[in-house]
């Protein structure tokens, strides 16, 4: 929430910054609260106690060190995909296909991780992450190119490329790169390609450090560089940006590539840090979580990290929740969707509150 124009001369600027940050956070908190309330209604209607369910979720997500570690583990891929959505969104683009870019990045990283086993660890890891970035970037470039060149709307194409990525990687691990055995997966990556675990026995890996660094980089690029300025200007008003001498088409392509890179590195981090191999269906939909997280995070890289921890908690907490209360884990997806819907229309909360105070 650090405002870039902090060089204000007024003496009360820390207070004003705090106030504006609060004003930005409050609608998000209300949206999250509303989503949990509607989720509670669904739980009650279907015969579950929302208090038991939410308590178990909270306990699972933050109850002990292991829970916290798993929450951060789940938050990590979502930070990447949220940054991917955010970056494109700032350019006025809807990259709802981060899932596909995430999968492609993960697969490319797995292939590099399996090969070149004679490399020293840091170089091998870097190379694998780079491969993930390239594959993700390519998967972002395709819809970007189709939009600029042919006007094909990215909401449709990014979705189509997600399906294509799902089947393509599935083909790869079922045929050319299938490990012996029943499971559709590759053989394990070399030890030299494994990202270090930072909180054993949880699966939390150094990937989260990459995620946080990229959140910082995203903030920096968007706010402090010419490219970031061009991205934001194109997002606000394309024709004005063009009149101002910005090559909007080029900017759109670049935004799509970088968006894909962010998701692709996330996929790489997941393979190199958590699974150590590409397993079919290893992503429970991290790409789609990213959209919700970016919106809940107020389309701000720092807010994205906080929101990702919340959504990571939903995922990690859902395991204990399901075990204790036997509620279907999809309640978590419902709550996420409700958060999106409540965030989609900021006026909704005001509308509901306004209604109540009138009557």
């Amino acid at each position, binding site marked *: 929430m650090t405002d870039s124009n902090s060089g204000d001369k007024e003496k009360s600027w820390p207070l004003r910054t705090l106030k504006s940050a609060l004003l930005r956070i409050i609608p998000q908190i209300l949206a999250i609260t509303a989503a949990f309330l509607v989720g509670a209604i669904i739980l009650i209607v279907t015969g579950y106690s929302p208090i038991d369910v939410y308590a178990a979720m909270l306990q699972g997500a933050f109850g002990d060190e292991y829970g916290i570690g798993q929450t951060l583990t789940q938050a990590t891929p979502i930070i990447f995909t949220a940054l991917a959505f955010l970056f494109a969104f700032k350019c006025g683009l809807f990259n709802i296909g981060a899932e596909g870019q995430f999968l492609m990045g993960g697969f490319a990283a797995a292939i590099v991780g399996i090969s070149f086993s004679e490399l020293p660890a840091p170089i091998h890891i870097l190379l694998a992450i780079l491969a993930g970035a390239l594959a993700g970037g390519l998967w972002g470039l395709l819809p970007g190119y189709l939009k600029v060149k042919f006007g094909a709307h990215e909401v449709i194409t990014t979705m189509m490329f997600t399906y294509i990525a799902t089947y*393509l990687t599935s083909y790869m691990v079922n045929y050319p790169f299938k490990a012996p055995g029943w499971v559709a997966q590759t053989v394990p990556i070399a030890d030299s390609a494994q990202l270090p675990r930072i909180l054993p026995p949880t699966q939390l890996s150094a990937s989260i450090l990459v995620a946080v660094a990229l959140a910082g980089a995203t903030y920096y690029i968007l706010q402090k560089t010419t490219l970031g300025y061009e991205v934001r200007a194109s997002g606000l008003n394309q024709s004005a940006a063009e009149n101002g001498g910005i090559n909007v088409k080029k900017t759109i392509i670049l935004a799509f590539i970088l968006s894909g890179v962010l998701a692709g590195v996330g996929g790489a981090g997941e393979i190199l840090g958590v699974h150590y191999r590409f397993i079919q269906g290893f992503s429970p939909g991290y790409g789609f979580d990213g959209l919700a997280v970016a919106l809940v995070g107020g389309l701000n890289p720092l807010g994205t990290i906080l929101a990702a921890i919340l959504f990571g908690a939903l995922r990690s907490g859902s395991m204990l929740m399901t075990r204790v209360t036997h509620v279907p884990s*999809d309640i978590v997806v419902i709550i996420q969707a*409700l958060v999106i819907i409540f965030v*989609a229309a900021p006026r909704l909360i005001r509308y509901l509150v306004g209604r109540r105070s009138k009557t």
Partner: protein
Amino acid sequence: MNILDIINVGLFAAAIRMATPVALAALGGVFSERVGVVNVGLEGMMLMGAFSGVYVSYITSNPWLGVFGAIIVGGLLGLIHAFLSVTLRGNQIVSGTGLNILALGFTAYGSEVIWGSRGASANVTSIDIIKLPILGDIPIIGDIIGSASPLVYLMIIIIILTQILLFKTPIGLRLRAVGEHPAAADTAGVNVLRMKYMGIIVSGMLAGLGGVFLSLGNLGLFSYGMTGGRGFIALAAMIFGGWTPLGAFGASLLFGFTDALQMRLQSLGILPPQIILMLPYIITVIVLAGVVRKTKPPSDYKPYEKD
């Protein structure tokens, strides 16, 4: 293997069958976009339609009540989308995406609560195929369209009626005016808000009907994420069809044909299934890239505010 094992009357019959849900959803897209609102939520509305249809049929053993339920639920989702994007002027794409994810989560949750499995529902009574008199006895044509689900014939009737409604009647003119020139429509005395709501609710109802065809049209069960991106393919069909019912139907036939071909090839087992399953999505991208430049959307999709 003979090429006629793949391309025969059965393939064309399957193409029309597979085109039906896409055509209905694409028509839903037409109604929404004609009143100036993008409906990215078609996918979720279809999925909810597919689910509620099975649920109602499961409770009542009457698949037609299921169809009715699917239309109602689709309309309700349309109402939510209209409220969010028209009244509250929220972001239409975010709202639609939220509805898609909600539908995916809700149907999986409901399936597990009701049938104990998030993967698939119990088998329920589906809608029987009917054979048309006279037409059904003509060779070749009869084999292709002579006997099918009543929903297929319903789809064809709806396409023709909505084409007339949109382009030959005063109410159609008003609907289109609301998307093209909301201010002018308002001045001419059209209730812009009501028209927008109507268009989007009808959009949801049609998507719900398209979805229930997937679940009750032949199998009689609901399975997780069974729409498989058809809502998005429908959006592509809508664009390809130039935002008209007949055009959307024609484009859906192309996608239906791809889908039917894909299933044929799969059953022959000459290529890995994953490769064949990619086909409809690749075709959609190609079609979209090939035609969009030549078409112009019927609205700028900006929320309308009275001065």
